[in-house]
């Protein structure tokens, strides 16, 4: 069934085996070199990647990084939800005014260009602006961009609340060294017994995915780490990839051992320019130490600026340099993924859980969060909180404990929280005693999702939040399925005019988008809008 062209995937596979770059890689190089993409660049990309010219054209019109022509100075302003919570969107207009160019425009003399980006992962000190390759954020950022003196923003801190940390302990390959001496089935059994739920949003059991792939007939299997989830308000994967890359690599090598894969890929976000270099350096070290190489090796592929590429079928399309649109499942990646091979796609944080299980066993892992989802979770907070940052916590704490005791609360009452990303429902400040775990959050129309917690203070206009989220939803729709492609544009238009919302018509529209959409993007963008309708009807 599916959707991605088998013929194009076969072309990509054949050229990949001969060492050819993907079309997306060639187009990104052209953009970085000259600041725009011409038809000649597209022809070169077709020639080098082996894709037909039309397919290359399609790729060149899909990814954000390829769409805005760049000036000598290229500035990207973050329009993620945390930056929105920090300024209500005022920073975007301020940057436009300061640079004298509109969003997604280049000045006539080509000296400067401004693009929108979601999200740079500096939610702990927003608003964030990327000037060239420097990401600046926090107080004074606009003045510094104005005076062309951007400086690197402080990196967020990662703190574990656990006596025995799983995710903040530096990857030391101890679990891998133990596991590789044993039969792969032992590790697979341990991961299944540990009941590791996917940390990227869907919460699907990792062991089940692994088992599907390990049973697939095709012996050429692939492990993919999804580091392009891109949920605005979450910088968890950024921290793991940049500050603890060996933990991720060890998790991938373990996954490779368990399912019998020899190849691994990490897809990083181009919005996090530090991720790929950090991982490449760690891969070189791991090869030198003999952990990676002959039996299992890893390559890093950087995405091109698309939120929906965080969905696994779209991620694999992006990895192969194709348009990052979603495909219907079946076939599942475990059956037919990268280059047509059985593929395990796990989120970065999910894979970072595996070394602990390999080292300490499933029982020790389950004991980390008694009477709750096994293991630990990273959560992160935006700059509205007193102590924003990322924290490793057990499942089962209340949202109040997380927001007040861990993150130090806000200056004033918390009006609302969006937990787990832009597809998560919104929890009102009156329901902070909700337990942070999959089922209790689902009962409130919310989700654990990716673990980002974006807090909105008492001054927040909830209609503006809805407008912001629908704009994001419409902009990031991959355009494949009809209800998401058209419905989110229409829903955003209803809010953007400022006219009163016809609730009946909105609810009918949300139903069509929610039920009809192909993937979780269209399926869940309505969730936070429904929360706002339920809890703040007077603000609409």
């Amino acid at each position, binding site marked *: 069934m599916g959707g991605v062209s088998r013929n194009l995937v076969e072309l990509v596979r054949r050229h990949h085996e001969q060492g050819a770059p993907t079309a997306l890689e060639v187009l990104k190089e052209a953009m970085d070199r000259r600041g725009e993409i011409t038809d000649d660049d597209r022809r070169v990309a077709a020639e080098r990647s082996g894709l037909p010219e039309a397919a290359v054209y399609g790729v060149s019109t899909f990814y954000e990084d390829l769409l805005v022509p760049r000036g000598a100075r290229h500035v990207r302003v973050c329009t993620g939800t945390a930056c929105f919570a920090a300024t209500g969107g005022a920073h975007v207009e301020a940057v436009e005014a300061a640079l004298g160019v509109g969003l997604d425009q280049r000045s006539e003399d080509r000296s400067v260009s401004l693009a929108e980006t979601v999200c740079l992962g500096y939610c702990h000190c927003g608003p964030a602006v990327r000037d060239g390759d420097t990401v600046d954020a926090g107080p004074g950022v606009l003045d510094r961009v104005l005076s062309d003196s951007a400086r690197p923003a402080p990196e967020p801190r990662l703190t574990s609340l656990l006596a025995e940390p799983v995710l903040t302990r530096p990857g030391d390959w101890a679990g891998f060294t133990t596991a590789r001496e044993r039969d792969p089935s032992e590790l697979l059994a341990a991961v299944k017994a540990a009941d590791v739920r996917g940390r990227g949003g869907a919460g699907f059991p990792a062991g089940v995915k692994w088992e599907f792939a390990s049973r697939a007939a095709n012996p050429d299997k692939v492990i993919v780490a999804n580091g392009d989830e891109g949920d605005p308000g979450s910088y968890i994967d950024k921290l793991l990839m940049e500050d603890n890359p060996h933990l991720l690599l060890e998790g991938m090598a373990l996954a490779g051992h368990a399912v019998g894969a020899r190849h691994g890929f990490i897809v990083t976000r181009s919005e996090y320019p530090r991720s790929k270099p950090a991982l490449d350096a760690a891969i070189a070290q791991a090869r030198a130490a003999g952990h990676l190489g002959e039996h299992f090796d890893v390559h890093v592929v950087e995405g091109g600026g698309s939120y929906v590429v965080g969905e696994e079928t779209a991620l694999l399309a992006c990895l192969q340099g194709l348009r990052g649109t979603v495909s219907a499942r079946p076939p599942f990646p475990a059956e037919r993924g990268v280059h047509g091979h059985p593929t395990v796609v796990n989120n970065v944080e999910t894979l970072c859980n595996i070394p602990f299980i390999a080292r300490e066993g499933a029982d020790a892992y389950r004991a980390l969060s008694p009477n709750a989802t096994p293991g630990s979770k990273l959560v992160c907070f935006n700059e509205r909180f007193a102590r924003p940052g990322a924290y490793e916590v057990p499942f089962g704490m209340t949202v109040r404990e997380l927001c007040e005791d861990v993150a130090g609360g806000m200056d004033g009452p918390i009006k609302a929280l969006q937990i787990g990303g832009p597809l998560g429902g919104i929890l009102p400040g009156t329901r902070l005693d909700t337990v942070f775990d999959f089922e209790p959050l689902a009962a409130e129309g919310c989700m654990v999702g990716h673990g980002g917690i974006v807090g909105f203070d008492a001054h927040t206009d909830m209609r503006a939040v809805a407008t912001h989220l629908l704009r994001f939803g419409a902009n990031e729709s991959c355009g494949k399925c009809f209800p998401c492609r058209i419905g989110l544009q*229409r829903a955003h238009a209803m809010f953007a005019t400022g006219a009163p919302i016809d609730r009946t018509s909105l609810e009918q529209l949300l139903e069509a988008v929610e039920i009809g*959409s*192909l993937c979780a993007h269209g399926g869940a963008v309505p969730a936070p809008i429904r929360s706002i309708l339920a809890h703040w009807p007077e603000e609409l």
Partner: protein
Amino acid sequence: MITLTIDGDEVTVPPGTTILEAARGRDIPTLCFDERQAPFGACRVCLVAVEGSPKPLPSCTTPVREGMTVDTRDPTARRVAAAIVELVLSELPVAPAPHTELAQVARMLDVGEPRWPGETHAVERDERHPYLAFQHELCISCGRCVRACDEVQGTFALTATGRGFEANVAAGLDQGFRDSVCVSCGACADTCPTDAITEISLLDLVR
């Protein structure tokens, strides 16, 4: 073989069959489906209710399972399908010709006045090719032309373009059919459900 129940009737089909194939002969509306092509799952108009599923499923990409109970006339599925077709009509600057599949499906689902009007596709025409004309404003991005060119003809002259509401289709590097690798086979025009791509002679007949 797999046995399932569709609208109360027992049906037996080989494994790997989709619900849409198993329900052949019943009135399930479709827009992105063409039986000569691999299912695509984009239009979401072929929704049916499946017992045990919390929401309706697209029949074109859902394989049958033993003991499955399917309702092709489920009110929620039909309501959502009609809303989707209403959205599709609202993105076109003109109504599709009555003989097109899109117009037929709209009639079948009794789609009324658009509840969510708004921006429509910009008018953009490619009429430089001797046999094929492309009215981009009528394109609903169902992907049938792209797949016909890829799967049936093997020419790869067409691609999906843009994303979100800007999605459309282009020939070659968007220079139009004439300057692309198009071999004028007409498979794209043949499958197009809106007449966005037409064969020139046919267009003349209509005029």
